[in-house]
């Protein structure tokens, strides 16, 4: 049964648009999927290396802006008379540019801040997100500032021999998000299952010991930051080309908090954690919207975060796994007792 479970879930998510033709639910699923990808990338840093990146939305936003600007083109005067003009490129190229630019900014931030860890890293990442927001707000010539980048075109994917296909409708976009999410999941699960992942976990558990057995700590942390930032950037690109308008508010701290809540509720350091947490917090606002104002919802989320840390510090997924393990063990034991009581003493051959 355990082996069949992933296949079952895969079939469920693959067929959603067929048995759930509601456009609004599909929209929620797409947005949720994008945030799950971002949460997975945060989990790589928070769950596997133990570094809390509280500016993660910066990578998401950089991916979104880089992708949108690549697609829309820009004409910027860097300094007196020196202009950088960029003609619009296809949106798919924007996706890769967004991913790469976000990954590069992850490298810079990792190099800068992994000299120091813990509290310093948290503060540097928050500061970085705030600086990117101020740049997006004030560099009007490039980003249109508060006027926002509008009319971001959807992706056009060329299939060999079948011609081009533009992703206008939600069903197509759902499958794109699913494909990117699956790719991100595979990259992250391969990574944490590899030697690199074991090194990351080793330095989360005991950094001094890890470095004394020859693990290059900074190297692995920077690597994790680059991959994490790149995945977040790809999620940002998906977001930009889906909602078709982005403004500096994309860098707001609340989005990072949303990702953090998803990861810690689901279970940090587990592959399924961000997905479970993402689904919960993707749909919770939809359920709560008719009965609670946004401020009330956020009070609930904040309180829930505190409660989770107090009651379920490992998150939902490890708790459920433990419960399942106990349950099957108990089942076996119960079955064993039944067998024992059925065989009366002296019944032997």
């Amino acid at each position: 049964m355990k082996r069949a479970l992933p296949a079952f879930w895969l079939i469920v998510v693959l067929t959603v648009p067929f048995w759930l033709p509601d456009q609004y639910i599909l929209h929620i699923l797409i947005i949720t999927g994008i945030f799950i990808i971002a949460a997975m990338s945060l989990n790589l840093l928070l769950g596997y290396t133990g570094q809390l990146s509280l500016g993660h939305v910066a990578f998401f936003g950089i991916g979104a802006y880089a992708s949108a600007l690549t697609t829309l083109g820009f004409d910027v005067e860097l300094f007196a008379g020196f202009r950088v003009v960029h003609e619009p490129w296809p949106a798919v190229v924007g996706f890769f540019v967004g991913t790469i630019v976000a990954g590069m900014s992850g490298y810079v931030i990792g190099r800068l801040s992994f000299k120091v860890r813990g509290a310093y890293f948290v503060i540097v990442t928050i500061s970085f997100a705030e600086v990117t927001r101020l740049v997006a707000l004030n560099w009007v010539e490039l980003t249109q500032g508060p006027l926002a980048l509008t009319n971001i075109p959807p992706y056009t994917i060329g299939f060999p021999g079948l011609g081009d296909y533009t992703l206008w409708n939600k069903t197509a976009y759902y499958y794109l998000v699913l494909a990117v999410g699956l790719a991100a999941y595979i990259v992250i699960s391969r990574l944490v299952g590899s030697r690199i992942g074991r090194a990351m976990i080793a330095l989360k558990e005991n950094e001094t010991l890890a470095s004394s057995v020859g693990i290059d700590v900074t190297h692995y942390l920077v690597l994790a930051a680059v991959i994490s930032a790149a995945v977040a950037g790809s999620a940002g690109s998906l977001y930009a080309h889906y909602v078709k308008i982005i403004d500096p508010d994309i860098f707001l701290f609340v989005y990072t908090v949303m990702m953090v809540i998803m990861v810690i509720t689901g279970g940090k350091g587990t592959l399924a954690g961000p997905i479970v947490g993402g689904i919960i917090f993707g749909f919770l606002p939809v359920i709560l919207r008719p009965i609670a104002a946004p401020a009330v919802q956020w009070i609930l989320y904040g309180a829930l975060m505190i409660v989770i840390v107090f009651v379920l510090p490992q998150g939902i997924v490890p708790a459920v796994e433990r419960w399942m393990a106990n349950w099957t063990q108990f089942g076996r034991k119960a079955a064993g007792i039944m067998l024992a009581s059925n065989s009366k003493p002296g019944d032997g051959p």
Partner: protein
Amino acid sequence: MDQLLQHLVNAVILGGTYALLGIGLTLIFGIMRVVNFTHGELYAFGAYTVYLISAALGLDFFLGLIVAIVAGGLLGALIEITLLRPMRGADIDTVMLVMIGGWIVMQNTELLVWGGVAKAIVTPFPEAPLVIGPVSISWLRVFVLVVALLLIAGSYVLIHRTKLGKAMRATFQDTDTAALMGVNIRGVYTATFALGSGLAAAAGALLGPVFLVTPTMGDLASLKAFAIVILGGLGNITGATVGGFILALVEEIGAGYISSGYRDAMGFLIIIAVLLFKPTGLFARAERVG
């Protein structure tokens, strides 16, 4: 030149309140090892308390200031007892998550109670500014600076001249040994958090009338306090005081001569620069508080 002088004066006035913010945060970090994300919300709480008493209830502004500081301290003690005391012994990241939860709850409670529209606090100070040569300062700002300096001096006296201060310094140096010597660690933690929170509320109560009071005012205050603390070295009170004035100076000069849009980015550029060149902060000393 005249303009520069005006910027310098503004920086000194702003720096006093920034120092209050920084001292509160650095005390809490140094003694309790807690990265306090609710710090900015206590700053906002101070500002709203003054608004409540002086504008909404129509009572005295100075009474509002005193109530804000005391209420901020009490709220801090409450946060420490309910959220932090059960988390003692947990690692710093876990506690950080709890504090982020607290931050979100507090900020959205402010939004719910007061609404998103910015509030202005009217003070009893005369409109006409004090003019000294080329520099003009409003009387309110003079008052803000004087109160901030008094509170900074008060914190120094508390930490260096009282028994509680001695207990705080002992806890900072070595919690276990301090406990063995009969220091009530629980009490020290609560007092530290209350003191830091009271100072943050005081900063908010002082700057609230200078600027506007909004539910999100705490976010930037938290981030600026972090910048000040990193600049001065975590747990270093003198560092936080000087750091507060340096941040205010950099902001004023940056806003005046580079771009006012990037005023709030200056703190973060400071953080990045400090981490690049002197990660221990400008005033790093071996583990000591004070």
